[in-house]
């Protein structure tokens, strides 16, 4: 009942936000005539209060998961993050930095401090310490659960400023409202989804905003701020690679289109050099930032900028254009030659590492399927279906091209950036489901431009009309209407009605969007995936809490040094909730190790026993969903165990487990398959 009323509240608020936007436009133009003195302040007040409402809305719409279920950590990776955050708050930063974790990847262990992005944990710990300092005795779990909604709220503010920077404050407000409730973003930032992405999208958008601001103003301070934003992003998520490739690409496009300016030079150089130095402080990134293939584009563009600057200077010194042309040709060829040579030598000597598999699979969607089964086995790495685009973006998908049109119509440095961001991220979103998240801010911003520009045009049309009407009526009983106005009316006979109809249409679409978002959030994205809920026969809610039952049993009733073998999906949860050592977990850094587990799972019982003894395994956790009809159990994942195991140990062959190319587990299944179960 509570959930239901809340959902209605959410819907009402959600519709209220864009509606208020419209009103702010209309309102400021109509009724403020009498208060002309304070228009500015009132506009500011309106803007701030709308932004405040959007801020709150973004937070509370993500609390569905807490209302429907409870204040708990969701999914798989967040459990690892939670565990590390707990460690950080208990042991302090220094211990955290040098943490060697022997509880996972038995018997190898994992150097946690050096193999994770600490941004999220440090942020949560910092919030926790601040609250503690302010005498609020909160539990670290509550902080972790609410970190993602909090940062989502902050993202709306950044979206507002970004929208203001690239278009106007109206677009900023619409963008803030859009991003606050966009399902594509909510899917990764509901309360309890304590994952890197929750913080990273904020950092991503902040970096972009600050960089665009730096390019627009040419100010060193903004470039510096953007470098720090980049640093935060690097510390938070591996997706920083997107920034360090998109920004050089953008700069390159500006250079090619002849928009090179001193502002760009200052912004990019400061951001790149400082950002690089800062990023190298993160242990997980380290020297990769100057050595790996993913980062080379940024470096290349950096040198290109210097060449441009040099050419500019030479052009200024040389008054003779002919001489300059010749010089230009020589310099450009030699620069390209030197660059290519450096890249070639670097790659050949192994100084520059080649692209990683994940990066390849982004550029070529079929790559992972053929070469790295472990990447292909994750459902969120699958190519995106149309339906999920529609599900996550709803009307934004249609507004996106319209927004692109407006951007092209008013081309500036900032709009070029947002166009490039939108197009590239849209491509990546098509390649991998999870990258819809990265595309979401761009889609929201561009759609916001479309909505804001359209509504502004329509209302300005309405405004002139109503003004003449007011003037006409104030004329009193005078019989003769001004002929000039009549002719003006006749030139666009249905303009006013058309504008009203369009406005209503836009309003309808926006309210539909808000309802859709609320529905998606409450129904699809608020499930913690550990606790399952279903409707019982009498309409009551039945809760399946079997995962936690198993983990808690492990925690309470096994010796503290027991080793648990399970498929890698459950690794993080076992270590966090069960507090026991696991063989493999969701940080899939050692493919061979996972393959060994896959082999153990897919061999005959006696062979499997040998393998497990050699790994010191005390307990094996398998998930079977046959009784309750839970579809993502280990039987379902079994083929992937076979594939991944087979990738390393050729003894295991996939066709052994299939019957005529079909996968079945009933009595018609392949004999080898049955024997392994």
């Amino acid at each position: 009942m509570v959930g239901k009323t809340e959902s209605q509240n959410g819907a009402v608020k959600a519709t209220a936000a864009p509606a208020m936007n419209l009103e702010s436009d209309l309102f400021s133009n109509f009724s403020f005539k009498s208060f002309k003195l304070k228009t500015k302040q009132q506009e500011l007040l309106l803007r701030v209060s709308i932004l405040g409402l959007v801020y709150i809305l973004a937070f509370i719409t993500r609390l569905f998961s807490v209302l429907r279920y409870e204040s708990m950590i969701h999914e798989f990776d967040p459990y690892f993050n939670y565990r590390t955050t707990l460690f950080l708050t208990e042991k302090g930063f220094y211990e955290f930095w040098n943490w060697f974790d022997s509880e996972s990847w038995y018997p190898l262990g994992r150097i946690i401090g050096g193999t994770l992005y600490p941004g999220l944990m440090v942020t949560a710990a910092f919030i926790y310490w601040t609250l503690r300092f302010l005498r609020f005795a909160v539990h670290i779990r509550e902080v972790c659960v609410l970190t993602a909604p909090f940062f989502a709220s902050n993202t709306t503010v950044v979206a507002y400023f970004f929208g203001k920077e690239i278009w106007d404050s109206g677009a900023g407000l619409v963008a803030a409202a859009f991003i606050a409730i966009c399902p594509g973003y909510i899917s990764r930032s509901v309360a309890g989804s304590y994952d890197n992405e929750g913080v990273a999208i904020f950092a991503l958008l902040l970096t972009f905003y600050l960089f665009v601001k730096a390019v627009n103003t040419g100010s060193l301070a903004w470039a510096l701020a953007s470098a720090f934003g980049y640093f935060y992003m690097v510390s938070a998520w591996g997706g920083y690679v997107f920034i360090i490739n998109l920004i050089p690409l953008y700069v390159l496009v500006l250079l090619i289109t002849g928009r090179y300016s001193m502002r760009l030079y200052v912004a990019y150089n400061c951001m790149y050099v400082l950002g690089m130095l800062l990023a190298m402080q993160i242990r997980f990134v380290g020297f990769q930032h100057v050595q790996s293939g993913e980062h080379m584009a940024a470096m290349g563009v950096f040198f290109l900028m210097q060449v441009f600057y040099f050419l500019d200077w030479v052009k200024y010194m040389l008054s003779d254009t002919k001489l300059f042309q010749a010089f230009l040709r020589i310099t450009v060829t030699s620069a390209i030659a030197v660059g290519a040579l450096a890249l070639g030598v670097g790659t050949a000597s192994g100084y520059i590492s080649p692209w990683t598999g994940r990066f390849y699979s982004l550029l070529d969607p079929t790559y992972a399927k053929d070469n790295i089964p472990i990447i292909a086995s994750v459902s969120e790495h699958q190519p995106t279906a149309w339906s999920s685009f529609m599900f996550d973006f709803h009307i934004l998908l249609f507004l996106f091209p319209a927004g692109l049109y407006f951007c092209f119509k008013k081309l500036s440095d900032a709009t070029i950036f947002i166009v490039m961001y939108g197009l590239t991220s849209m491509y990546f979103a098509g390649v991998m489901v999870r990258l819809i998240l990265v595309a979401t801010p761009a889609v929201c911003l561009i759609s916001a431009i479309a909505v804001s520009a359209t509504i502004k045009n329509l209302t300005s049309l309405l405004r002139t009309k109503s003004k003449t009407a007011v003037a006409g009526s104030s004329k009193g009983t005078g019989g003769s209407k001004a002929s000039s106005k009549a002719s003006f009316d006749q030139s666009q006979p249905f303009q006013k009605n058309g504008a009203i109809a369009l406005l209503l249409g836009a309003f309808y679409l926006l309210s539909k969007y808000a309802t859709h978002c609320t529905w998606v959030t409450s129904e699809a994205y608020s499930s913690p995936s550990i606790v399952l809920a279903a409707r019982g026969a009498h309409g009551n809610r039945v809760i399946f809490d079997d995962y936690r039952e198993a983990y808690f049993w492990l925690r309470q009733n096994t010796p503290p040094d027991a080793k648990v073998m399970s498929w890698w999906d459950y690794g993080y949860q076992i270590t966090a909730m069960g507090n026991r050592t696991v063989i493999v977990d969701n940080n899939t850094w050692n493919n061979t190790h996972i393959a060994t587990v896959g082999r153990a799972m897919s061999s005959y019982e006696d062979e499997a026993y040998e393998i497990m003894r050699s790994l010191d395994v005390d307990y094996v956790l398998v998930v079977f969903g046959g009784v309750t009809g839970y579809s993502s159990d280990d039987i379902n994942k079994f083929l992937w165990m076979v594939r991944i195991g087979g990738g390393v140990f050729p003894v295991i062959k996939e066709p052994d487990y299939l019957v005529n190319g079909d996968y079945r587990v009933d009595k018609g299944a392949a004999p080898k398959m049955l024997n392994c179960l």
Partner: protein
Amino acid sequence: MGVRRKMALRFDLIIFTILLFASPVLSDLILSKVDRRIDLTSQIVENEGSEPVSEVLLAFPDLQVKDLALLKASPHEGKGKVKSLSASLPVENVKPNGMPAALTFYAVKLPKALGKGDSYTFDVLAVFAHALRPFPEKITQADIQLVVFQESAFYLTPYVVKVQSLSVKLPESRIESYTKLENTKIHGSEIKYGPYENLPSFSYSPIVVHFESNQPFAVAQEVVREIEISHWGNVQVTEHYKLVHGGAQNKGEFSRLDYQARPTIRGASAFKYLIAKMPPRVHSVYYRDEIGNISTSNLWGDSKKTELLIEPRYPLFGGWRTAFTIGYGLPLKDFLFELEGNRFLNITFGSPMNELVIDNLIVKVVLPEGSGDISVSAPFPVNQWEETKLSHLDLTGRPVVVLQKTNVVPEHNQFFQVYYKFSKLSMLREPFMLIFGFFSLFVAGIVYMHVDMSISKSSAAYLARLQWDEVQAAIQQVENVINRCLTTHDKLEASLRDLSRTGDVQACKAARKAADGLLKELSKELKLVLSFLQSSSAASQILPKVEELVAKEKDLQEKVMAKHSTVVDCYEKKTGIRDSENRVAAQQQKITALRQEVENLLELIDEI
């Protein structure tokens, strides 16, 4: 694995009557009811002659003493009725000389010394935990659980016993085996030993009873109860349990499927739920553990009590453990009272769980910050110390009284009191802290908005900004003036309308005069601002617009005046209204156009 034995002792100068009931920890009786009736003639007492006897010794073997949870003696009231709440006799641990070393003695002080031939009857209640031993020690999921109880058929006492009997009450009629002595009878689920007559002191005859018991042995290894008082109307109780099933260890595997299908057969010894009896008007009950909320619980209640049924995450088989936390809020006025300026909390000591033996119970009473003069009165001896706890909005921390007791059984669920002093004013401290916090936040905001934070006061950008601010102020002023002019025009128009309605020329003229004066003043003001704008360099781009605006406005003003005079003239000269309308119409059109332009300009400037 607790055994609760109720023992009543009837005392005579010549005859002791001792009643001993042994019943299990669980009220529905795990083990038995031992009914022990012993008549004995005390030689010692008689030998003492006229010396009055003031205490009676009770003896227990050391092995039992470590599990002794409660020992209580009370005067006997009525036949066979034991009222544990009646005034009890003081009991203390003593070490008399010349007694066997393996025994521990407790002395019961009698209310009055007994003379020769006097008799006195009293009841002794002794409760033991962990007196039952599962045998066999390991069973599978489908097996039933068997337990063993060992006792002496004769009451162990330093005195001579005249007549005594013992009855053992068992929970179920299925008895695997029991020691057969002479005079042993069995009635359904009750075994009777005796009566035996004239037994010497320290007579001992071990008996063993082996019987079926599928009652879960819920043992809490540690329970921490935290009772937090908020003077805003709430007593928050949080209880952390560490539970273990103390019965026969589960061996082999556990099949959930079997358990789900036939829970009574495949899992008879498993322990499924606990019931907590809570006070009425309990609210915000929760049940969770380290990894989250546990959804398998049920709460119901009426005006007398509230009952909470909780199921652990998994059925507990023998030897399995679990841990969880329950918490609930209670209304303050039910538990906190005031007495001569002192406040005291009156709340139960033990856990609200039924049928639970607690090895180690720690009760923490968290008093509000700033309370002092703390003292505790408990109905039985407990260890006690003090701590402080930092909670929401605390500066120095809240004083915490910690009470600790081992071997706690439901009989310990008695009220205890914590007395302390707390002034009403300190209650307001935390709200004030919050108010002050927000206030200072807003003050900081205001200060930030009004303080000039720029580092270099002479930089070009800074000066330009200052100038721009001034220009903006000036433009605001211009707009202001123009707006006032426009309202004056409106007034004139209104006066004209009045004129057409009433024909009062004088009023109209007066309005005109007032407007004239006002407009003159305004134009003076405008001139001043304009001259400033002209002198300022930062205003150069906006100046033409402003000048245009002013010019237009002046034009408009003239037109309005002209119209006004025309209309007034018409009325004075009494020319036809139709005539005047014709002349005015042309002027009106111009005025409207001009007004439109002025307004447009105003908006334009506003946007800049």
